[in-house]
């Protein structure tokens, strides 16, 4: 399956891009995407990262589906 990952703020700067599309095995979970990103972007390795799937926060063990829109980001700092 394919998923799209969005980046914002510090995460976009660390990654050097604002989106990333990737193919994953059918049984992948959110944590697999984090591992893949940390492998691909060493800047992310020591950062706390949160994951949203289709605009909802999810836990690391949440199963992904084809076409999911992910966002992976550092802790928010609005206000």
């Amino acid at each position: 399956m394919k998923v799209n990952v969005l980046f914002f703020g510090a995460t976009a700067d660390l990654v050097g891009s604002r989106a990333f599309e990737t193919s994953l095995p059918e049984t992948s979970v959110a944590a697999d995407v984090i591992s893949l990103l940390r492998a691909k972007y060493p800047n992310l390795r020591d950062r706390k990262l949160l994951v949203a799937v289709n605009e909802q926060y999810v836990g690391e063990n949440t199963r992904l589906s084809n076409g999911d829109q992910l966002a992976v980001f550092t802790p928010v700092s609005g206000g």
Partner: protein
Amino acid sequence: MDFFELTTDPIDITSVSRRVVPLECGATVTLDGYVRKFTKDRETLHLVYEAYEPMALKEGQKLIEQAKKDFEISHVAIVHRLGKLEIGETSIVISVAAPHRKAAFAACEWLIRELKRTVPIWKKEVFADGEVWVEGDAADIKTA
């Protein structure tokens, strides 16, 4: 009636706090956050706010719904500004209207604390000698 909005335009405080005034209410508590020039001796030049907009709107609505369950309040209005903000410009206004002031104070304080923890918006501080994306405290975010 309640609203959570994102805007790149300057925010007029009264237009947020008085857009809706329910007839059973007697007090509105408003938090108005703006760009601080000096943090101790360090000088800020400006701020930049960026949001994951569709998710921020959803998370903002969730906060409002939760606040209305947990506090005896009638109306919540929140506007968060995005983009580049100069010193003194308002980044956020949270207004809570209630029949009595105590619930309005409590809800407003809860809303800003939760917003800073859960709504996907990020702040970059630009100083004379560099810039930094501020990292929040994301402990215990409730996940689906």
